[in-house]
C-alpha cells in the first residue's frame, strides 16, 4: 500500500528516468572520488612548491624536481628520528600483540578447560572500553613503573589495546582448523608446544595478517598516548613529532606540506599496494 504510494511519488519526479539510475550513481562516485583525492593531491603538489607559489597558484602542477622543502626537512629537523621511533614503537607493539594474541587465542580455541569462556569474555570486554578515559590512572601507572618518557609505556598500552581484537579474530579462526593433523602429531608423541609451533601456527597466518593490519594502522597513527607519556623530543613518534615540527615552521607552507606528505607517504604507499588487505583488516571488527 505505502509501497505503491512511494512508487507513484517517485515516478512523478522522474529524475532517474531522464538521467538513468546508474548514470546518477556514477556521477556521485566520481564526484566523491575527486573530493577524496583532491586534498591529498594538493598536499603532494604543494610539497614541491615554494610558499609564494602555493599562495599564488595552489592547484597548478609543480616542478617535481624542486625538492628543496624535503631537503630542509631532512637536514634541519628531527623528522627522521620521529620516523624511526614510529617504526620501533609500532614494530615492537605488533610483535607483542601477535605473539601474545596468538598464545591466548590458541589456548582458548584449541583446548577445553574450565574458565575458558570467562577468559574470552575478559579479553572481549577490552574491545569496547574507550581507554582514553583511563588516561589519568594510566599516567600514574606509567610513573610508578618508571616508564614515563620511555617508549615502553607506549608499547605496553598499544599491546594491551591490540589484544582484544587479535584474540577475538584469532580464536574464531583457530576454532575452525581441523583436528586431524593435531591428533596425528599427538599420536606420534609430539609435545603440545611442538604441535602448536610446527603444525598449527603455519595455518593461522591469514588470520594474523588480518589482525595485524587492524592494529598496525591505529598504532602507527596514534597521537593521544605519546602526547601524555612522552616529553623528550628524541623519543617522539611521527604524529606527535609532526606537531612540534608544524609549530616551528608555521609560515613556511612549502615545508609544512612537505612534512605532511612525508608523514603520509609510508602508509599511503603500503595502502595502495595492499588495499584489499587493508580494507578487510580495518573493517574486520565491524563486518560480520
Amino acid at each position, binding site marked *: 500500500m505505502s*509501497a505503491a504510494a512511494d512508487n507513484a511519488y517517485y515516478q512523478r519526479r522522474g529524475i532517474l528516468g531522464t538521467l538513468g539510475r546508474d548514470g546518477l550513481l556514477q556521477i556521485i562516485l566520481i564526484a566523491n572520488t575527486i573530493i577524496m583525492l583532491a586534498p591529498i593531491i594538493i598536499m603532494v603538489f604543494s610539497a614541491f612548491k615554494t610558499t609564494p607559489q602555493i599562495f599564488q597558484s595552489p592547484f597548478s602542477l609543480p616542478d617535481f624536481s624542486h625538492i628543496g622543502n624535503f631537503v630542509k626537512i631532512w637536514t634541519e629537523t628531527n623528522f627522521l628520528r620521529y620516523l624511526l621511533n614510529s617504526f620501533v614503537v609500532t614494530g615492537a607493539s605488533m610483535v607483542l600483540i601477535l605473539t601474545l594474541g596468538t598464545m591466548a587465542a590458541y589456548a582458548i580455541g584449541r583446548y577445553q578447560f574450565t574458565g575458558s569462556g570467562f577468559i574470552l569474555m575478559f579479553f572481549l570486554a577490552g574491545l569496547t572500553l574507550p581507554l582514553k578515559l583511563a588516561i589519568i590512572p594510566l599516567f600514574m601507572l606509567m610513573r610508578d613503573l618508571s616508564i614515563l618518557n620511555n617508549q615502553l609505556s607506549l608499547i605496553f598500552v598499544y599491546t594491551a589495546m591490540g*589484544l582484544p581484537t587479535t584474540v577475538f579474530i584469532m580464536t574464531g579462526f583457530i576454532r575452525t582448523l581441523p583436528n586431524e593433523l593435531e591428533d596425528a602429531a599427538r599420536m606420534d608423541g609430539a609435545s603440545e608446544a611442538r604441535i602448536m609451533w610446527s603444525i598449527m601456527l603455519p595455518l593461522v597466518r591469514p588470520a594474523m595478517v588480518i589482525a595485524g593490519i587492524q592494529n598496525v594502522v591505529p598504532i602507527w597513527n596514534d597521537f593521544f598516548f605519546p602526547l601524555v607519556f612522552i616529553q623528550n623530543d628524541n623519543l617522539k613518534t611521527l604524529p606527535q613529532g609532526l606537531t612540534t615540527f608544524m609549530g616551528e615552521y608555521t609560515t613556511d607552507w612549502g615545508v609544512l606540506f612537505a612534512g605532511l606528505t612525508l608523514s603520509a607517504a609510508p602508509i599511503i604507499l603500503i595502502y595502495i599496494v595492499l588495499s584489499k588487505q587493508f580494507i578487510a583488516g580495518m573493517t574486520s571488527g565491524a563486518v560480520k
Partner: protein
Amino acid sequence: MPQLRMTGRGLWITVLIVPPLAFIALFIVYPILSAFAYAFFDWQGLRRLDFVGLENFHTVLFVEPYRSWTLNAFRNNVIVFFALMVLQNGLGFLLAYALWRELPGARFHRIAVFLPVVLSTIIVAYLFKLFYHPLFGVVNITLKSIGLGWLAQPWLGQGGTALWALIVAQAWHMVGFPTLVFLAGMQRIPGEILDAARMETESEWVKITKIVWPLVAPSATIVFTLLFVGAFNWFELPYIMAGLDGSPFGSTDVLGLYFYRTAFGNVSAGQQDFGLGSALAVLIFLFIAAIATVITVRLRAREIQL
C-alpha cells in the same frame, strides 16, 4: 602417565594464557577501575588527598564555571554526533549503494574512498587547517576564483563556522569506513531476495527502504555504535585544529578536550586537577556505556536473521 600428561597440558595452557591476561589486567582493567576510584578523592597535583565522596561529580555538574563548560562541551558533542550521522554514515550508505552496483571503475572508487581512513588524524587535521586558512587556504581561494568570494570567511576563526569546519574535515577523513562496512553488508544480501524484489517493484526508492536498508541492519548497528563512541571521545582533530581551549570562545570545545584540559591543565586553566578530571572521565564513560548499550539493543532488535 595420563595424570602426568594432564598436568603438563595444564601447565602449557597456563603458560599460554597468563602473559596476555596480565597485559589486559594491568593496562586496561586496572586503569579503568582506578579511574572510578580516583574520582572520589581530592587531588593535589599527582598526590591523592582526602576521600571527598561525590563532591567532584557535584562540582563538574552543578558548580560554575564547570557547569557551563560541561554543558557547552556536551552540547557540541551532540551536534557533532548528529551531523556526522548524516555526513558520515548517511553519505556512507549512499556511496556503498553506488559502489554495490559494480559500475565501471568501482574498484578504483572503493580504494579512493577508503584512502583518507588510513591517514593519521593529525595529518588530516593539519591539512584542513591549512586549507581553511582565511587568506591563503584553498577553500577561500577556490570560492574567490569561482565568483563566490563573498562566501569566503575565516572558517576556523569564528564561532558560527568553526565546529562545522571541523565536522566536515572529520567526515572527509572517515566516510570511507561506514561506506565499506555498509558495502560488505549489501554484498551479503542473497541474490534471490533481490530478484524477488525486482519482480515486485520497479522503484529504486522502495527497494532501498524496504529491502536493502532492513537487510543491512547489522552493519548499521555497528557503524552507529562506533560513531557514537567516537563522537563522544572526539579529541585529536579539535585539539590540532582548534586548540585545547576549543577556540574561538569554546565554540569547538568538546568533552575530550575539556576532560584533558581539566586533568592535565593548560596555559589558561593552569592547575591540573585529577579529581575533577576523573569525575568527568567517569561521567563520560557511564554516558557512553549506557547510550551505546541502548543503541545496540534497540538496533539489534530490528535486525533480520536470514
